[in-house]
């Protein structure tokens, strides 16, 4: 990512950063607002995690430049994502 950006490209990036920031701020307010609606627990969890995942992807894709990142970085992350899911499945294991 860091290799040889022209000033124009950097400026383009900066506009993206500002937009992403606005999106993140808006989403934060939305998720807090929704929490005051006291949705049923499953819906609340779903909505909150959906918004959080979306915010997280924005940060990862634009601030962390994953959207334009090299394959060598993306491949291990896919692996990690898989193992992360395996970890999150643990709590349900004892039920089967």
């Amino acid at each position, binding site marked *: 990512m860091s290799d040889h950006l022209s000033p124009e490209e950097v400026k383009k990036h900066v506009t993206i950063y*500002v937009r992403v920031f606005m999106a993140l701020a808006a989403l934060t307010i939305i998720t807090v607002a929704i929490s005051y609606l006291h949705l049923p627990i499953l819906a609340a969890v779903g909505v909150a995690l959906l918004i959080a995942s979306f915010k997280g992807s924005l940060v990862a894709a634009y601030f962390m430049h994953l959207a334009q990142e090299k394959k060598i970085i993306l491949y291990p*992350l896919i692996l990690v994502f898989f193992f992360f899911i395996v970890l999150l499945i643990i709590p349900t294991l004892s039920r089967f």
Partner: protein
Amino acid sequence: MSDAAEIRFISKPHPITGVTNSKLGVWCFLASEVMLFGGLFSAYILLRIGATEWPHGSTILNVPLATLNTMILIVSSVTMVMSWASLALKNFSKYRFYMAITILLGIAFLVVKSFEYAHKFEHHHYPSTNNFYGIYFTLTGLHGLHVIGGIFLNLYLLLPGSKLWKTNPEQFMGRVEAAGLYWHFVDLVWIFLFPTLYLL
């Protein structure tokens, strides 16, 4: 000495992989961090579905304060990435400005957090009070440690470490980017911690 003893790809990316050593290293480190917080989130889920009663975060935690903290971290992420962009534009003084703001925001986050903690302790709510407080203090505490680590890292890059800009700007930019990746990751963790602990 011959170039045989030179470690390559410190400042210039590898022609095939397209990344520098530090960038790949930081991503590996972050992968490991994902698994660390994954383990803790897993613990959270297990404790919660196993619990007979689980308090709703918003009833006992201070949501407005945490929302403020979320905003602080998001802004600090923006300033962090701006400091990197300033370097890309070869504007060193702007870099220092944004980096300083990032550090101040990090400290602000910790100050707000400490108010929250103090408030809990005043009401005799400790990690041992129940598992909600236990996991709350553990997760936010560990996250707080990461913030402290990030602040020290950024302080180094703001003050003594910035000398490198004069001798090897490319490598310095790589370092700032690496620190940025870490800082954004800390922000990212908070983005998930905030709804899980405070809103659900």
